[in-house]
């Protein structure tokens, strides 16, 4: 396994002159764009494909392969949509990149758009990210002035426009087809698939949607080659990755490491261990709240990569790692996770519209002392009723974590039921 020995995505994020294009240029910004524009777009796609880069938004789908879905021959305009809607609980890496190295992001967007012969880049940024939005807006203005955006970019013959678009508060708009609906000025309802975005996307035109981090790593792949990328991480799980560490940690934050790094290394080394050393680790949600929860025992030897976590019944997802110590009541934690899904369900299709709210209310009732053992069976059954029957996987994202809490911390649920209330006075470190 290849360890990461340098900062890649985070190499310039500690600077404080992000709106200074000259400073960024001095640090190498847009050099790779110049190189890429001299290459064949198909060759760029091949390189990214060869690198084995997997999407960093949550699904881990091979990026190069996704790019090949765009039609070769078409008279329709092709679009790249940047998914900057980062809303998965526990995730805060894209915000860091956009706020602290907007030019890197923009360079990644441009190279990728060129590779898929897109003529417009839509950046969909969540409404709450006002400062990152302003940073990107400024970066776009500067890039446009320099000729990196517009007609005949750097003499390549390629025309591209960038449209920066704000969301307004809806997690579901991070789902790529709901994002497109929102971009088109509608309620964020995921679309039926097929057709897939590459054949019918924004305004019905061929579209590829990629996460910010995914696109931000592309300049490095182009500059250093697919083999460099493959040398970091593991087989089929290559490259550097931003891990979002939060919860009961001494030093929560975004850390860059190779895919496959052991979870306990991230917790103990990068994050300095538990927030309160007197309280042991109890559970970790490893990949944003849509990932199944892992017990401390399961975390003891846990390589953080897509395939390992999937094999263990969870997922790397957005790499939003939420660390819980023994003060946490797992029923209450489950309730808090499900509250999120109850609030964020778009409501389009029956199982999720009703189910997301229903499972939240069952767990809430158990937490507050009104639950029975039959409720646990109902909960699992309702979750099964949601999974695999909906337009998008939001229902799965709510139901599978719920089932994991009940399966792995069943005793805590049973205690709540027999004691008719929450037996722990679980105190997450309070604000002072």
């Amino acid at each position, binding site marked *: 396994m290849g360890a990461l020995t340098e900062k890649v995505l985070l190499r310039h994020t500690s600077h404080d002159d992000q709106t200074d294009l000259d400073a960024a240029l001095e640090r190498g910004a847009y050099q790779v764009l110049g190189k890429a524009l001299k290459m064949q777009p198909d060759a760029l796609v091949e390189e990214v494909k060869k690198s084995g880069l997997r999407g960093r938004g949550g699904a881990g789908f091979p990026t190069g392969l996704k790019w090949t879905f765009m039609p070769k021959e078409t008279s329709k305009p092709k679009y790249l949509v940047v998914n900057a809607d980062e809303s998965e609980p526990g995730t805060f890496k894209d915000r860091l990149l956009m706020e602290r190295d907007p030019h890197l992001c923009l360079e990644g967007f441009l190279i990728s758009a060129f590779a898929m012969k897109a003529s417009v880049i839509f950046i969909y940024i969540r409404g709450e990210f006002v400062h990152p939005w302003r940073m990107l807006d400024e970066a776009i203005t500067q890039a446009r002035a320099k000729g990196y955006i517009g007609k005949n970019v750097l003499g390549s013959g390629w025309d591209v426009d960038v449209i920066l678009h704000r969301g307004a508060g809806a997690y579901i708009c991070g789902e790529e087809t709901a994002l497109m609906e929102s971009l088109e000025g509608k309620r964020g309802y995921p679309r039926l698939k097929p057709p897939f975005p590459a054949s019918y996307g924004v305004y019905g035109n061929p579209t590829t949607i990629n996460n910010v981090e995914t696109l931000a790593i592309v300049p490095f792949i182009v500059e250093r080659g697919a083999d460099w990328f493959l040398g970091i991480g593991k087989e089929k799980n290559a490259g550097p990755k931003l891990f979002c560490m939060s919860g009961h940690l001494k030093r929560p934050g975004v850390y860059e490491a190779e895919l496959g790094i052991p979870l306990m290394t991230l917790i103990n080394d990068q994050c300095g261990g538990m927030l309160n050393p007197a309280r042991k680790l109890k559970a970790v949600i490893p990949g944003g709240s849509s990932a199944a929860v892992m017990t401390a025992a399961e975390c003891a030897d846990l390589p953080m990569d897509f395939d390992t976590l999937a094999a263990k019944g969870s997922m790397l997802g957005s790499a939003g790692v939420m660390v819980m110590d023994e003060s946490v009541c797992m029923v209450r934690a489950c309730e808090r996770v499900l509250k999120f899904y109850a609030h964020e369900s778009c*409501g389009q299709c029956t199982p999720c519209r009703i189910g997301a709210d229903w499972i939240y209310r069952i767990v809430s009732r158990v937490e507050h002392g009104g639950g029975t053992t039959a409720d646990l069976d109902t909960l699992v059954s309702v979750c099964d009723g949601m999974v695999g029957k909906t337009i998008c996987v939001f229902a799965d994202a709510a139901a599978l974590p719920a089932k994991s809490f009940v399966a792995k911390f069943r005793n805590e649920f049973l205690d709540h039921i027999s004691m008719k209330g929450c037996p722990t006075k679980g105190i997450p470190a309070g604000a002072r």
Partner: protein
Amino acid sequence: MADTIKLTIDGKEVEVPKGTTVLQAADRMGLDVPRYCYHDGLTIAGNCRICLVDIEKMPKLVTSCTTQAAEGMVVRTSGAKVEDGRKAVMEFLLANHPLDCPICDQAGECRLQQYSFEHGRGGTRFAEEKIKGFKAQSIGPHIELDTERCIVCTRCVRFCDEVTKTGELGVFQRGAYSYIDVFPGTELGNAYSGNTVDICPVGALTLKEFRFRKRVWELKDVPSTCGACARGCNVNLGTADEQIWRMTPRQNMDVNKWWMCDEGRLSYQPTHERPRLREALARWDGPPMAMSYPKALDFLAGRIAAAGPGGVGVIASGSLTLEDFYMLRRFASEAAKGARVVVPENRRGEDDAILIRADKNANSAGAALMGMPVDAGGHAHEALLRDSVAGKVDVLLVLGDDLVSEGRVAQLAPARGRLFICKIGAFESPLTAAAGLALPAPAYGEFEGTWVNFQGRAQWVRRGITPRHAAPETWRLLAELMVRAGIAAHFASAAEVLSEAGQRVEALHGLTARALGTQGVELATAGAGKP
């Protein structure tokens, strides 16, 4: 053949055109896959999830309404996997649903009732407090909304967006708190609002005019044709106790597809609500006298005979049936020779892009086929009325409840005493009061016969109810007059009249009532469509 595909559903092979969905293919086979949000006349939404089926090689159940049929597909619409999926969806749908069945109009034609009976778990495990909604909200002149009953299938929203293109409805908020409503201060007031009630699979949208009036299982549906304009939308009359309680559209892809307009939907109301002419009334000086039919007809026949050639004028409503017009044609040529016949124009507004025709006669085309085209511009009508007042016409027969002529009563006043007016119609009116003889005719729903719509399509109008008073059809009265003039004219039914007309009038190409069926017959006629 490259344009069709073969697939297997529940063990039977079926061949369908490319582009057909699995649900549509199942429909063709007569299978009844449950559905809420899918409607043939609207875009696919795929949100209710009840139409789940099991397709070989696909790991999850899929919605049949969104899945294109593919060559060699093997589909199962029943079985444990499918039933489990449907049970789950039904339980979700019923979770917050209020127990309104005893007071809900939809009972008896409610898909929640039907599918929970056929596919449900038979109970619910939902133990939480149900999310409440707005009950009985008037959102339009004809529509009442109950958001608690709503399952957010969005059929109504899509109807207003796609069919009427008026967009009055929207889905507000999100998640379990999603609900459908109008924009504050606006109403669901388009001319087709009643269709949202038809397509609502539950009792969330109800029609004010039908609300709480009758249980649907007490209604007998009579397939008929609407007479409110020249479109002739195919309808069902919901009848009980010799009354029509509602009209709903009946599918006819050539005429009205799945829809009808609100005016047509309520066009049965006059039959029961407008004051009816209930007996033959004769009037000379003083109050009207009830008369028996035979006596009244004898008297009328006498006046017609006395009038001489050209002395009889007839104003015939463009909503009379083909049978009425055929008999009138025979009457005017054989009995009252030289009778002047005018079919008044009856236009209001414009043709819209959906169904409504400006021509409010139900049978302008039929009249034209019988050689009595509508008097466009009204000149002949004017002339006849002038001549009636001037004494050039002795007997004026007014057939049908023609509102145009009703407005001319004052114009005819100077001729009082000299001009003999006979009104044959269903309703009391100033003209009925001024006429020397008023004979009751059946109102909508009480007669049967044929109307030809603006497309030249002959459609059958079926009798659904019988009035308590005697109200013979106009063709029957005309036949009686002919008999009194010594002409053989014996017909037992409108169908018999149509049979003769079909033989004798070339433009009808041998049409019979039987041939009309429930979807009508397009008559290849030039000029049939002109108002």
